[in-house]
């Protein structure tokens, strides 16, 4: 399954939903879309608006590939579960977000060259990238998150010092 998700942001992301639905109409990929506040209703792909976070986590874990806006939650979860991820950032100029910070996140991740995370900026390139990633059949190993361990330690120390 390919899980397409656009998060909780109050603006829609029709550009991604439409493209994913179009891909679903002429390929054999099983595509499930979380469309959030987007107004376009997919014709070929299965879709829903929102689900509780635990359910979304299950969809991510059950996917061969996740395609997402540059939303932090999805990126963190894909890394944790070791699921390949294509990031397609929301753009201010299309009314998809208030700023272009999703492009900044995408660029920062691109520079870091994370395994199994791919960035696509134009929807015309999405289908080719999906084919490329699925053809790799990679089995990513969930990584240990050093940043997370450091944050937990720092916050714990602060709490204990103020006890």
């Amino acid at each position, binding site marked *: 399954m390919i899980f397409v998700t656009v998060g909780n942001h109050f603006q829609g992301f029709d550009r991604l939903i439409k493209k994913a639905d179009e891909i679903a109409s002429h390929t054999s990929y099983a595509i499930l879309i979380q469309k959030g506040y987007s107004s376009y209703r997919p014709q070929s792909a299965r879709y829903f608006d929102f689900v509780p976070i635990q359910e979304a986590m299950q969809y991510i874990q059950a996917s061969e590939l996740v395609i997402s806006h540059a939303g*932090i939650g999805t990126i963190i979860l894909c890394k944790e579960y070791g699921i390949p991820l294509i990031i397609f950032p929301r753009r201010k100029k299309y009314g998809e977000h208030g700023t272009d910070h999703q492009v900044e996140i995408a660029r920062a991740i691109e520079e870091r060259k994370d395994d199994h995370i791919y960035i696509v900026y134009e929807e015309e390139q999405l289908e080719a990238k999906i084919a490329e990633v699925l053809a790799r059949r990679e089995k990513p190993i969930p990584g240990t998150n050093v940043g997370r361990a450091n944050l937990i330690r720092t916050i714990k120390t602060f709490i204990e010092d103020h006890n």
Partner: protein
Amino acid sequence: MKKPKKIGLICSAGGHYTEMLQLWETFEGYPKFLLTYREITTKDQQDAYYVENIFRGPLAFIKGIAKTFMILLRERPDILFSTGSEIAAPAFYFGKLLFGTKLIYLECSAQVYQPSLTGRFVYPITDLFLVQWEPLLKKYGPKAKYVGGLL
């Protein structure tokens, strides 16, 4: 033995909430409560208080702020921790100014080069201020710390 400190955890829905869940084990063993937005993604969580998004309109703004105050009055947390975003602002100011609460703010990992509005707003009163990308340090003052990021 001193009474363990009570911790209030505050975050919006979406990525801020996922970041909170990633750090949940930090607060295991402490009495705690969660303050978040009422959304499908966040519903039915344990020990949670819900407010409507305060930017959904003037009425939601007033109701959200009043409810935040009532929750702090009832819970009297010793420490507030937030992963953002604007939902933290009223709670942090009430906490600091009225109850002397210690404040910990984690700037969202979505902020790579630019500070968030909420981050800038709560920075002056926050006791432990953490950013998740090193380049962001120079946009804040000397109090900001970078020890790593979730992303």
